[in-house]
């Protein structure tokens, strides 16, 4: 076995890896933003006093937490367009469907976890805080905005960052539907060069470096907004 990394001197290989990294990062960033947005919307909806709505949210969360992510991606890609009329289906299948459906699946999947993180943050705030906020004359929305959420979000930051790291790694699951992200490209390079060890080592390093960067950024955000802050 040779441990030379001559792979990296090949412009084609480099280009494929770069493209893979860019798709991975786009998937990750998209899932992060969409996931957090959906999670915040769900947290807001949970405040609506409706049993049915809460039941639907619970169902949504349980589906996304208990079904393997890779299955969720497949369901979206292979299943979802099938229930649509043929004309729409053909139109959907024209473009870069693979990426879009992977993004939808990953966003929904992570939104369920983010939502739970935010909810547990809210639950961690003592009920006396609401009572105190109301007793100094703040309204319901004001109490939420000025007293509860600033504290709850800070408590949620560490689990949210943790989950984000997992999403970053989960982007590699998108390769099962042919999204050309990093792992897909790595397998493709492996399939034409057969330098299995070298290419997987290279990709391991790439993932590790990016993961550590995300973790470092996350740690800085945590430090900036500590949970036990005094204002």
């Amino acid at each position, binding site marked *: *076995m040779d441990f030379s990394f001559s792979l990296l001197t090949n412009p084609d290989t480099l280009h494929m890896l770069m493209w893979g990294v860019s798709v991975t990062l786009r998937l990750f960033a998209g899932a992060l933003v969409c996931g957090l947005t959906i999670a915040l919307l769900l947290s807001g909806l949970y405040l609506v006093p409706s049993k049915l709505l809460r039941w639907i949210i619970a169902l949504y969360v349980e589906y996304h937490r208990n079904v393997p992510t890779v299955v969720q991606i497949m369901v979206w890609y292979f299943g979802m*367009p099938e229930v649509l009329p043929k004309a729409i*289906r053909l139109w959907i299948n024209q473009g870069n*469907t693979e990426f879009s459906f992977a993004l939808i699946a990953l966003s929904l999947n992570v939104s369920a976890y983010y939502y739970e993180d935010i909810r547990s943050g809210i639950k961690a705030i003592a009920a006396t805080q609401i009572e105190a906020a109301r007793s100094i004359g703040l309204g319901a929305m004001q109490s939420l905005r000025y007293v509860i959420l600033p504290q709850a979000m800070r408590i949620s930051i560490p689990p949210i960052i943790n989950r984000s790291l997992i999403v970053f790694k989960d982007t590699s699951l998108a390769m099962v539907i042919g999204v050309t992200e990093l792992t*897909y490209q790595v397998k493709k390079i*492996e399939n034409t*060069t*057969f330098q*299995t*060890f070298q290419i997987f080592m290279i990709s391991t390093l790439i993932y590790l470096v990016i993961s550590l960067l995300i973790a470092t950024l996350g740690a800085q955000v945590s430090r900036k907004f500590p949970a036990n802050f005094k204002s």
Partner: protein
Amino acid sequence: MHHPIIKSTILAGLATAAVFASGAAQANRLDDVKAKGSIVCGTQNASSPYGFQDPKTREYVGYDVDMCKAIAKEMGLKLVHKPLSTEARIPEVKMGRVDMVAGSMAYLPTRAKEVDFSLQYLQGNIGVLVKKDSGIKTLADLAGKKVCASSGSSSAAIASKVLTKSDVLTFQTISQCYLGLQNDKVAAMTAGDLVLLRFKNDSEKTSTPTELLSEPTYTEHIGVVVNKGETDLKNAINVAIEKIDKSGELSQIYDKWMGKDSIYKLNRTFKVQPVDRAN
């Protein structure tokens, strides 16, 4: 020595050493297998009719499995059969976990840089399957369309080279490509002709029949693979394959899996010859 951490450290060290040694070792694999009295032969694990599990008996059967048996018998060795995933075939050989692979492994110049090929024991075309009503008749018609292949297959590697104007994408299994073709995710799928024939037969029962394009993307020369530089072992396997061919056993194996006794009803047209003969 009984401390788990020390134990695992030593094991990890040994494993690392073994990996390096297997690369550096100048040991002769043929002598090794003769000394052991058995040969480890890898095949595909889920690729009908080459190497797959018989749904009834749960045993691994197929053209390649029969080749392993015949070669081992011819060499006077006990066979240790090892089913492998498509992607694992070459890594397993290179890491020395198997002595040889008869895994419907087609000769490609890049592959031959990593492993050594025996004489061909099978030849097959890689084709393209499209929907009958798609209007696609030639490979040129595939320009700008999505073509699906199975991840890690030679069909995928060849499609990327031959169908440069198409968008070649890979799914985990070829069945998923078929699903994608059926519900218009992709315009075509590419794989070995035999695989495609099975899907074609299946599609005739549905509302969307498919057809094979007459033009293959490539003719594959399939040989047994051994680790780079194991010339003695390769030569011994070559002798075995030639004997199997002369005795008529190869034609029997062919008829059983691809010829008159199978669903494909193909006729054997290939000769046992070096894999790198020009197409």
